[in-house]
């Protein structure tokens, strides 16, 4: 290590590269980080896993995203029989279109003009990862987890999602062995759209229930 920098960090305004000090985030070897490193190195040393297998598993996890969930939703919009299956048995509906059943039972809740569903895990961060990928940071935040269950309409409006007073809000607290997917409402004017086109309208946030599916009409957003 060296203290010689090609620019310095005095806060006197005299340097062209002035920026606030900020500690690196990767320099804290917490208890669980140390345990993870120790277990991983042991598994590699004993020949049970290779470093490349670990890397590939992380890469696979990072590659999962909401596109799978969007396929499920688009199919349900396009095919009433499939929607019925999806609402009755989410895992079977995944398998029916070539998606993994997933490690948990999938409960699908349908948004209508009378009911809006939204998902939270107040205890931790339970999330249908095989359909949506890793949960966003806000989903894991204490703020979202505590407030979504207690003042959902206020939290939804902070996401820009206004729910009319006469629409029932159903919060689903994912506390145990179920995982939840919201089936958003199909935007008007998409009757002739293909499943691939429909899937483009289905965002991660719409499937968590903090937003609506994208509205493709020219009036949208006004």
């Amino acid at each position, binding site marked *: 290590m060296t203290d010689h920098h090609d620019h310095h960090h005095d806060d006197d305004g005299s340097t062209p590269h002035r920026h606030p000090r900020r500690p690196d985030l990767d320099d804290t070897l917490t208890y669980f980080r140390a345990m993870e490193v120790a277990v991983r190195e042991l598994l590699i040393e004993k020949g049970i896993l290779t470093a490349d297998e670990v890397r590939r598993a992380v890469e696979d996890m990072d590659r999962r995203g909401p596109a799978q969930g969007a396929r499920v939703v688009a199919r349900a919009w396009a095919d009433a029989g499939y929607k019925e299956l999806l609402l009755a048995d989410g895992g079977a509906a995944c398998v029916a279109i070539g998606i993994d059943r997933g490690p948990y039972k999938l409960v699908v809740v349908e948004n209508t003009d009378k009911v809006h569903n939204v998902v939270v895990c107040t205890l931790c961060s339970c999330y249908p990862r095989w359909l949506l990928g890793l949960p966003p940071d806000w989903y894991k935040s204490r703020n979202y987890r505590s407030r979504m*269950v207690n003042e959902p309409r206020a939290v939804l409006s902070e996401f820009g999602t206004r729910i009319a007073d006469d629409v*029932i*809000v159903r919060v689903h607290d994912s506390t145990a062995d179920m995982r939840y997917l919201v089936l958003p409402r199909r935007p008007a004017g998409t009757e002739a759209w293909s499943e691939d086109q429909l899937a483009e309208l289905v965002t991660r946030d719409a499937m968590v229930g903090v937003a609506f599916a994208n509205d493709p009409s020219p009036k949208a957003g006004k």
Partner: protein
Amino acid sequence: MAPTESIAPGFQAGDAVMVRIAYPIGHVRTPHYIRGKPGVVERFCGIYGNPEELAYARSGQPRQPLYRVRFIQREVWPAYDGNPSDTVDVEIFQNWLEAR
């Protein structure tokens, strides 16, 4: 392998239930905010290893029936000011439920 021990389901959809008020030490998946609240079983979810045992690397047996229980928000949060029909559904294991 020893046979799996499971508790038989004691509730079904539509049953009126109350969440037990208890504060045991350890890993519990019944949120504090819902203890002591009245709800209605929305559906039976299946029978799963007891998380209060699994968390300590024990067998999770006897396995516990799991339910989704629906609560009226105004009965959970007295100051709730949304639609009186707004609900929160929570997954709760049978060992936390009483008939009411």
